[in-house]
């Protein structure tokens, strides 16, 4: 075939379009600067900013699985909060079991206990995700109303099972010895645990980006989000991919549950469903199916919650919803939608 009749036609996107694409990334530093101006006190601002980033990254950990599940499988999983609660309780049990390690003054033993608690929680919630997908979600693929009903039913069952195994009361979770207290930088006190949460959150985001951009399974997930039918026509068993992604999403919710439990220092059977309000806000702000959008949305929600809680506590309750409304007025599909709303 001759190339003479087909002229290559590709141009760099116009400058305005490139700026528009990059704008959401700039929202986080812009919000931080606005927070600095409004708060005035650099020490308080630094403390609140680290707290906001930590909170945002923990929400990102919980929300990232949900957004990929929604994008790839078109499943609205209202039961996602169950994995957060179960993850927190399983992690708590492991930390109790490793009480000697958590009470030790050794940083290594403390971190090893947290690592094991996270690992076991992720395995437990990953397996729970397997059962949830096979029994509850699989029969209702493509039926959104039924998905909402049965996944909420699954959430209620999971909450009641937590009551059966761990009792109905709120449980206090003590952080390991070396994760208690703060580091003082100038006049700012920054909790050690928040720094750990920031580290884990950023590492997870980079790992997810690497997997999605640089591995074949990541390619499959991105392609599946866009056109699952075509992925099947190329010879891939997308139902198997669905299951793997659902299990990974559930395991990430379990990880988020452990971290959120240690952050709040109390856990309840309903903690998952309570945090799901913020998780859904982050997923909607980020754009359905987008890990990058979810990351930016989580940071915005975390920072805004902390700044407004300091500046105007009464406004804090509605600030995240207001943020979502403003973002949706600007970009009705969210910051970086992968799945376009029909």
């Amino acid at each position, binding site marked *: 075939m001759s190339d003479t*009749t087909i002229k290559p036609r*590709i141009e760099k996107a116009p400058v305005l379009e490139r700026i528009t694409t990059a704008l959401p990334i700039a929202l986080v530093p812009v919000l931080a600067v606005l927070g600095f101006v409004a708060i005035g006190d650099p020490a308080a601002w630094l403390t609140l900013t680290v707290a906001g980033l930590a909170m945002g990254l923990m929400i990102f950990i919980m929300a990232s699985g949900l957004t990929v599940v929604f994008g790839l499988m078109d499943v609205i999983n209202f039961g996602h909060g169950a994995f957060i609660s179960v993850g927190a309780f399983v992690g708590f049990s492991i930390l109790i079991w490793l009480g000697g390690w958590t009470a030790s003054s050794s940083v290594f033993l403390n971190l090893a206990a947290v690592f094991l608690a996270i690992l076991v929680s992720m395995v437990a919630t990953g397996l729970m995700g397997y059962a949830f997908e096979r029994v509850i979600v699989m029969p209702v693929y493509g039926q959104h109303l039924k998905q909402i009903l049965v996944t909420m039913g699954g959430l209620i069952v999971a909450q009641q099972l937590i009551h059966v195994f761990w009792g109905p009361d709120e449980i206090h979770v003590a952080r390991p010895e070396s994760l208690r207290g703060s580091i003082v930088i100038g006049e700012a006190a920054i909790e050690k645990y928040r720094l750990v949460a920031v580290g884990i959150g950023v590492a997870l985001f980079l790992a997810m980006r690497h997997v999605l951009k640089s591995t074949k399974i990541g390619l*499959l997930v*991105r*392609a599946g989000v866009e056109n699952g039918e*075509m992925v099947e*026509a190329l*010879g*891939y068993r997308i139902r198997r991919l669905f299951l793997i992604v659902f299990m990974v999403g559930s395991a990430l919710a379990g990880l988020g549950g452990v971290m959120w439990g240690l952050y709040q220092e109390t856990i309840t059977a309903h903690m998952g469903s309570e945090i799901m309000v913020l998780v859904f806000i982050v997923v909607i702000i980020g754009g359905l199916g987008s890990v990058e959008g979810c990351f930016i949305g989580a940071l915005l929600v975390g920072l805004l919650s902390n700044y407004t809680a300091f500046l105007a506590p009464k406004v804090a309750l509605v600030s995240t919803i207001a943020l979502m409304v403003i973002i949706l007025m600007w970009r009705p599909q969210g910051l970086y939608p992968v799945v376009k709303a029909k």
Partner: protein
Amino acid sequence: MKEPLLTLSGVHTHIGPYHILQGVDLVVPKGGVSVLLGRNGAGKTTTLRTIMGLWQASEGTILFEGQDITKLPTPEISRAGIAFVPEDMGIFTDLTVAENMTLAAARGPLDPDRLEWIKTLFPPIRTFWESSAGTLSGGQKQMLSVARAIIEPRKLILIDEPTKGLAPAIIKAMSDALLELKETDTTILLVEQNFSMASAVGDTVSVMDDGHIVHAGEMAELAGDARMQERLMGLSLEAHQ
């Protein structure tokens, strides 16, 4: 008559309340290009999607190399050696051209020799290798879609209206590419509304109407008989030249 590669016998397909295929009997011989013609809504696309397992046949059998594939899931049908180029091209626009091609090589890494052949067949694949597939023009996307289907050796390629909405120069290029593909071991089942293009590349032809095959024979016979074209499809070859 050549040995049949694909045989549909009494295939019915329902989509929701609609009875689209109403007993399709179709034989695709091994080698060459078989063309499926028919007016809009006759059931051509449904036939391809049913063969591919994207819509399930409610009745009838589909044999591929003598094996019943009627109830097989789509990935198994693909792995049996059937590729599909859908009408909407099915390009992953968020992925680069290279990523689209990598994903299409489902059985292993890209074969450099075969990739080089494809790049010669479709030069834009080489030109835009690292570009986002979403930035390609319609014709380039169609080339990528066909290139993806042939990145691994396939026994049968189902192609649904590859020239729809394309400029004449691109249609000519696509036609040339299909003629070159004919020289390989690959069999092509082509759904096409552009009769000039179909008659230029086709060896055999089947005509559909209202969910049935109403005519099957040699393409040369249909191309040479304006009255038969008028009777079967309500068109004349001259009108398309």
